[in-house]
């Protein structure tokens, strides 16, 4: 009788041991499945919650005017980084135009590593949704703002703190679900 119970006990341990690889597979599977819906290109920015980096750059339309983040302080503003050589910027352009019409805060364009003439021609061709445009010929402001793939969009609050960043073309879905709700939190519209 004793030997029989000992036997079944050993069987039970064996069964649990066989379950371990299955468990490991399930855990790895869950992580991999989650990974499928993540975008590895979207690297979280360390700048969220930090003061907007300084720049002093000429305006695209009035090269004598020097603009800096302080020029827009006092209420929230949106910085949209684009370039005439950027294909995805054409794709998001209608969304940015629509956004600029909807909100009553400044939407500023940063023409990133682009010749001013090309930038101006691009805005003439597709329409200029921006309240002001800034020329970042060398890409130094882009580097300071952690820009690595245009288009990128930042939302800066009234105190000059970056509250939101989107990498890649804006879609109306992202504007609705993420940007507008963040803006509502900041008390803008």
């Amino acid at each position: 009788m004793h030997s029989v119970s000992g036997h079944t006990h050993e069987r039970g341990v064996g069964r649990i041991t066989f379950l371990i690889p299955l468990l490991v597979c399930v855990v790895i599977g869950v992580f991999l499945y989650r990974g499928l819906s993540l975008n590895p290109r979207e690297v979280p920015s360390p700048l969220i919650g930090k003061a907007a980096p300084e720049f002093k750059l000429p305006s695209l339309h009035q090269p004598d005017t020097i603009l800096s983040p302080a020029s827009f302080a006092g209420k929230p503003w949106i910085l949209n980084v684009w370039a005439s050589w950027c294909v995805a910027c054409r794709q998001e352009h209608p969304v940015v135009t629509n956004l600029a019409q909807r909100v009553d805060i400044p939407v500023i364009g940063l023409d990133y590593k682009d010749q001013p003439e090309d930038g101006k021609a691009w805005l003439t061709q597709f329409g200029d949704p921006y309240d002001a445009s800034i020329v970042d010929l060398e890409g130094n402001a882009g580097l300071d703002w952690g820009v690595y793939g245009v288009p990128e969009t930042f939302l800066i609050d009234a105190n000059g703190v970056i509250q939101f960043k989107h990498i890649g073309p804006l879609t109306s879905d992202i504007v609705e679900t993420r940007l507008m709700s963040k803006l509502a939190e900041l008390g803008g519209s």
Partner: protein
Amino acid sequence: MKRLLLVITLSLWASSAFAVEARDFDTEADAQRYYKLIARLRCLVCQNQSLADSNADLARDMRDKTFELMFEKESSDDDIVNFMLERYGDFVLYRPPFKATTVALWLAPAIALILGLVLVARLAASSTGQSSRAQVEDEKLAAARRLLNDSERVDRDQPR
């Protein structure tokens, strides 16, 4: 034919060697310091390449910045790394730092190894258990053999 081979060989060599632009260094040590640092930093556009490997525009800008900080502003390596970290986050480092959010990343392999060793040890232990069971079965087999031999003897004793 020989000339064609030479052209092909040279062009292969050229394409791999000049991802990084040539620079002037005062000393060999400066050059080594620079190349060592750009190999530690990641290009965010082509994410599996370091600044030293990538010929993306952004990588070039980041190399320029590294060079400028290192030799014009005379920043230390740590300052340059911090400069990049402030702008691009931990992802800019090829070797992720050890901190609360990366504990799992760093420790998971060690934990997996320990779990694996425990599993192997347990399987080994249970297989020695099996061999003792095998011993019991050996005894039973011997008993069965004895019985069979006996019955054979009985068969032989039977008159045909």
